[in-house]
């Protein structure tokens, strides 16, 4: 068999392939050749073949059949073989492979090899991808090498130890003795890797951390030497001596100084020195400054030093280099909580960064801007932020809109400004606004009572322009439904009132219903709004027509609503005004969610949205509960949820959590309003208990006996519904003192014309004999004119086999029941 082609030959050949198919063909051919060569156990060319295999693997072709060959190469005595073998192992033999463990013995042998380069190879392989079992087995060898005097091996052993500790944290103790003299090394490689090792240990174990605190003076000294020493060609990078080591030392100092006064004090001087003396013209100097700033902010440094750090960041912000600006914004974000005032000084620069072309910078600048908004700068900042909202990428718009809403809520200088800001957001980024900000906004609008006319006018005008942005449309329809009367009456103090007729308004709302752009939720909003207008506008017939059309809509939600509204028109017209009256001011529930940054992203589903608006228009004739709950008011506080926009994967650390407090608080999932879910309206009243239906009992009204004849006694007990004093709830208790049951008991009542009566179903129609039980039934009386309550009752039952019927007048109602 001819010698397998050389690696370079193969590479050259494959590169001549003009199509993917051609390349695949070549590769397959070569793979076949390699496979048969492997089968022949050819030692001479194994190395070459594996190298070729690795090349093909990089192109994306499978190479698993070479795994065992790598092992054979590692076990070979030839250095070339080992080199390729270990490379192959690192590329093909990660810890998920079955044959991974077979390497252990080879590595062990090579760790003790006579040639340091072989030892180096095995240390490298172990340190890059050793599995936990392997690390456990070989930790001892690594520890031994950590103590050797050969700096070439020592530095590799240190990083290998880092890997071992990451894989098997329990083994950390084992390396402790070897760390004793690490920092006294002169060799920079060893110093650097030792610092990395110490960092890893301190990060993982608080005990280690306290143990190593004593190294702070030594570290400070080393750092000082690096800065003060003259030019050292070996380690120089653009005039700075070993920046890699400097950065690592600064990082270790950060960890050691955090939360510890003494250590922090010990490093104050050197930090100040680094901060002031480092050359900033090149990236490398700025890298060191960056690390220094991070350290200063994290330890307990004195305030002068902190100001120095923030100023460095401020200078970074003005740097031409984008990378530096990005890094500055990231760091400022971390420090804005603790050093708010200092960061405020750089506000204008930060705001300028909003206009940067780079996406990452823009995002950082946006977050930082929100963090910097306060009562004093709200107007200026909001202008910039709104401008930013206009022009930014769609990815940003949702976050920006939420941020603006939050900031506006916190610091709005006036209600009008607030409403204007909301309007601006809705009109420019209306489709990106999160779904759950709609209820928030509605609540806000409701509460600014004096702005209702202005708000509804502006929203109406916005609707005329554009109906594609759903949140805007939803808020607008809701407002028009609520305040349509203000709109057509042309009263507006804040700006020139527009002339609009009822028909025009209805046109717009109906337009929403039929438009393709409207989502089902939006359609529901507009139907409800139209319905509400039936009590505010005079063109009731038109509204009736619309409502009845949608009674046969395909959309179940719309259909249901329409049917119910229809019923409201037909059978319960007397209740319509009460049901559709103005919403009271809603109370905002306290946010009880955690204030850490929560990854929420518009999690409200629209069902919650629906139930929120149900209390307003509920099924007319069903469970009496609901009617009372609605009019009861207190129980029905629509819960407003504040959301947290998604936090981008930013440089985090615990510092960032502090931001949550300031700008973006998490919200709880709202409890749905206690009103009834959308069940079919039942005109048959199923058994209800006669228990009082609400807990806000007004003054206690004394009960009375309404009827007492032939053993049948009927007592009335009263309750008044608190918010609506026009409704009296009477519970009748019928008891039977005779010896025989009264069956088929039916109680009927009639009231004068000015009253309205509702009789709920009785608990049963048998009044047991000898007062063994009672029949209860609830009567609701609506007495809007507060006239004296009078009632005529009719009783029918069967007693001892014969039917009995009786009529009676009840006049002795206590005054509290109707006044």
């Amino acid at each position, binding site marked *: 068999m001819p010698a397998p082609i050389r690696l*370079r030959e193969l*590479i050259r050949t494959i590169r001549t392939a003009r199509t993917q198919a051609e390349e695949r063909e070549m590769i397959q051919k070569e793979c076949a050749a390699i496979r048969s060569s492997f089968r022949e156990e050819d030692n*001479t060319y194994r*190395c070459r073949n594996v*190298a070729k295999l*690795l*090349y093909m693997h*990089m*192109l*994306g072709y499978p190479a698993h059949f070479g795994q065992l060959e790598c092992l054979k190469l590692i076990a070979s005595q*030839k*250095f*070339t073989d080992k*080199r*390729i073998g270990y490379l192959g192992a690192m590329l093909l033999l*990660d810890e*998920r492979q079955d044959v991974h463990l077979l390497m252990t013995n080879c590595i062990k042998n090579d760790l003790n090899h006579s*040639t340091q*380069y072989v030892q*180096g190879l095995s*240390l*490298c392989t172990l*340190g*890059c*991808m050793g*599995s936990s079992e392997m690390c456990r087995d070989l930790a001892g060898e690594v520890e031994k090498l950590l103590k050797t005097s050969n700096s*070439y091996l020592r*530095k*590799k052993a240190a*990083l*290998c130890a880092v*890997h071992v500790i990451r894989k098997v944290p329990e083994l950390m103790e084992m390396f402790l003795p070897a760390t004793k003299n690490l920092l006294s090394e002169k060799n*920079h490689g060893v110093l*650097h*890797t030792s610092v*990395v090792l110490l960092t890893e240990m301190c990060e993982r174990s608080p005990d280690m951390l306290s143990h190593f605190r004593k190294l702070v003076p030594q570290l400070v000294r080393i750092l000082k030497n690096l800065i003060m020493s003259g030019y050292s060609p*070996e*380690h120089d990078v653009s005039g700075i001596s*070993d920046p*890699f*080591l400097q*950065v690592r030392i600064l*990082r270790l100092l950060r960890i050691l100084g955090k939360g510890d006064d003494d250590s922090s004090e010990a490093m104050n001087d050197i930090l100040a020195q680094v901060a002031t003396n480092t050359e900033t013209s090149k*990236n*490398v100097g700025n*890298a060191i400054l*960056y*690390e220094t700033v991070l350290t200063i902010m994290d330890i307990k440094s004195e305030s002068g030093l902190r100001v120095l750090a923030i100023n460095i960041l401020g200078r970074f912000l003005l740097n031409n280099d*984008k*990378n530096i*600006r*990005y890094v500055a914004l990231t760091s400022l974000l971390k420090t804005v909580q603790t050093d708010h005032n200092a960061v405020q000084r750089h506000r204008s620069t930060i705001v300028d960064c909003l206009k940067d*072309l*780079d996406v*990452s910078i823009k995002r950082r600048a946006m977050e930082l801007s929100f963090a910097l908004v306060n009562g004093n700068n709200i107007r200026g900042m909001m202008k910039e932020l709104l401008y930013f909202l206009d022009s930014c990428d769609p990815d940003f718009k949702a976050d920006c809109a939420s941020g603006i809403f939050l900031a506006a809520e916190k610091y709005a200088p006036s209600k009008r400004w607030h409403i204007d800001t909301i309007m601006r957001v809705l009109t420019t980024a209306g489709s990106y606004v999160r779904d759950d900000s709609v209820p928030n906004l509605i609540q806000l609008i409701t509460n600014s009572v004096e702005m209702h006319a202005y708000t509804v006018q502006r929203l109406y005008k916005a609707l005329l322009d554009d109906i594609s942005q759903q949140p805007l449309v939803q808020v607008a329809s809701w407002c028009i439904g609520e305040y349509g009367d203000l709109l057509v009456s042309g009263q507006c103090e804040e700006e020139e009132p527009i002339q609009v007729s009822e028909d025009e308004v209805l046109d717009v709302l109906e337009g929403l219903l039929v438009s393709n752009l409207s989502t089902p939720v939006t359609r529901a909003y507009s139907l409800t709004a139209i319905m509400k207008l039936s009590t505010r506008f005079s063109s009731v017939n038109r509204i009736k027509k619309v409502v009845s059309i949608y009674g046969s809509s395909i959309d179940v939600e719309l259909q249901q609503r329409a049917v119910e509204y229809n019923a409201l028109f037909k059978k319960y017209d007397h209740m319509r005004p009460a049901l559709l009256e103005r919403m009271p001011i809603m109370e905002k529930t306290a946010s009880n969610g955690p204030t850490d940054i929560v990854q929420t992203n518009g999690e409200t589903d629209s069902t919650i949205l629906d139930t929120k608006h149900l209390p307003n228009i509920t099924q007319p004739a069903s469970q009496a509960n609901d009617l009372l709950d609605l009019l009861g008011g207190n129980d029905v506080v629509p819960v407003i949820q504040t959301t947290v926009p998604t936090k*981008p*994967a*930013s*440089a*985090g650390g615990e510092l960032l959590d502090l931001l949550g407090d300031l700008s973006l608080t998490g919200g709880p999932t709202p409890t749905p309003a206690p009103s009834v879910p959308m069940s079919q309206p039942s005109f048959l009243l199923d058994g209800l208990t006669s228990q009082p239906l609400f807990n806000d009992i007004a003054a206690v009204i004394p009960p009375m006996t309404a009827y007492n004849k032939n053993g049948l006694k009927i007592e009335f007990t009263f309750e008044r519904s608190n918010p609506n004093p026009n409704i009296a709830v009477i519970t009748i208790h019928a008891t039977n003192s005779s010896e025989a049951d009264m069956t088929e008991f039916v109680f009927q009542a009639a009231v004068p014309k000015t009253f309205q009566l509702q009789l709920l179903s009785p608990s049963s129609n048998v009044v047991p004999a000898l007062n063994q039980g009672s029949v209860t039934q609830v009567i609701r009386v609506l007495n809007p004119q507060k006239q004296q309550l009078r009632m005529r009752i009719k009783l029918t039952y069967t007693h001892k086999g014969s039917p009995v019927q009786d009529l009676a007048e009840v006049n002795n109602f206590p005054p509290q029941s109707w006044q």
Partner: protein
Amino acid sequence: MQFMLLFSRQGKLRLQKWYVPLSDKEKKKITRELVQTVLARKPKMCSFLEWRDLKIVYKRYASLYFCCAIEDQDNELITLEIIHRYVELLDKYFGSVCELDIIFNFEKAYFILDEFLLGGEAQETSKKNVLKAIEQADLLQENLDFQIRLLPAGVLSPNISSESTGLFQS
């Protein structure tokens, strides 16, 4: 550092070094997505981007992109310096290195990387020392066996492509 990728402007992978254990499938997926993301960046944009939960630091040298994924606590600016140091090492070793050198001598590129970084961290901060170690290892290879001879640097293919542009002439 979690991994380093080198790829061309056409998205062809030239080197991949992974310091975290991932399945082949995952590696391919990450590579594909990251390459796409980085290639989509405009030239004036900054060298850092957030991707999944990692920070990505990348820099273009001639026709090659050097892309590193670092963790939250790592310093982005110094990572740029690390990338630069690696390119300098390659340049010194190959003599005015270009993409072709890395294509035809990929195993050498790996060897150099493994003398500079270990487990994702720099093991040697002196350029001289890294190069010396490689030199010695190469000699060892040559002396102990005569089968694979060190090829002169920069074997070029007939057509002049972007791949033969030196990395430092961008």
